[in-house]
């Protein structure tokens, strides 16, 4: 595996730092995964950070060709993903960080939905609810033979649709993963 991290963060609009009342950070379903410091950023294999304006553009641009995907994007306010390859890494330290993140989530009113642990692999899925509405979804996982993943999705979430779409897509081989320009937030 290439040691070079592939940063895929795209934030198209350079908004003023404290600018905007509806920014994702103010949404209940948002998790500041950067601040949680789960993984070293310079060693990430994948880093995705997409905010509301870009999500709207994605929804509009895919409406004709992929209406299901477009509809999911349309309801979202933020997608954050970090993937950290853990081969050759002390997974104990990673596990500690994930446990800390789990505690953070539980301390901030997130509801545990799924906890699976098997042969060292751990997966947690948490939901942020407002009444009956799901406002955020966070997934944390560690596969000591492969990678650690954190995903935070904010917005109007239909987990069924998310799951269906996600499981119909495939993570490409490393060499095919597109690289992108990382724009400062």
């Amino acid at each position, binding site marked *: 595996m290439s040691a070079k991290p592939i940063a895929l963060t795209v934030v198209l609009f350079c908004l003023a730092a404290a600018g905007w009342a509806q920014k994702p950070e103010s949404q209940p379903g948002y998790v500041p995964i950067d601040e949680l410091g789960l993984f070293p950023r310079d060693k990430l294999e*994948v880093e*995705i950070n997409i905010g509301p304006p870009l999500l709207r553009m994605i929804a509009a641009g895919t409406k004709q060709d992929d209406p299901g995907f477009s509809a999911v994007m349309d309801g979202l306010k933020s997608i954050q993903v970090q993937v950290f390859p853990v081969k050759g890494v002390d997974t104990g330290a990673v596990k500690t960080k994930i446990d800390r993140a789990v505690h953070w989530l539980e301390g901030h009113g997130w509801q545990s939905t*799924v906890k699976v642990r098997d042969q060292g692999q751990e997966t947690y*899925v948490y939901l942020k609810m407002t009444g009956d509405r799901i406002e955020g979804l966070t997934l944390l996982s560690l596969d000591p033979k492969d990678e650690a993943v954190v995903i935070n999705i904010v917005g109007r979430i239909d987990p069924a649709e998310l*799951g269906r779409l996600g*499981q119909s897509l495939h993570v490409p081989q490393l060499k095919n993963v597109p690289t992108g320009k990382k724009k400062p937030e």
Partner: protein
Amino acid sequence: MNRPHDALPCEEALDLLEPYLDADLPPGEMDRVRRHLEACSACAAELSLAARIQRELRALPQPDCPPEVIERVRRAGRGEVVPFPARERAPRWRIAAAAALVALAVGGGALGVHIQHVRQQQEQVAQATREARLALAYFGKVTRKAGLDVRDEVLEKRLVVPVARSVSRSLGTADDAEPRKEL
């Protein structure tokens, strides 16, 4: 005093906000809407939004066309043959168009969007779309690895449940043959 038979449902009030703002309703209707807004903070908030939208629209600039356009028309009027300027007719993605429109409104008529810049934006959106799909693919990969059918887990059983009852193997892959232990 509110009379029950006079009460306006929210759905109707929301339909009347714009004419209410323009004072374009008969006096009786204006009163009904006003009373509703006094009692309903959600509709009152919508009215604030409607008012802001109107203010912003009215504040949008009216740009002037560049003088060379008039010059070309003038020359045509004098009988000269004046072709339209050669444009780089790249595919006109509306993303480019709306970018120009935003440049117009935020910066007045002075700003334009160069084709090159527009193409960069097109590429950025295409890139972001790929990344959004990648994000979902990772979600699918992890949940599949964990032997989870997200629909069952998340929608219907929002509590941690023993593996025997909760874990659905419907979307498991070959390497999911090992039984999972749930905490």
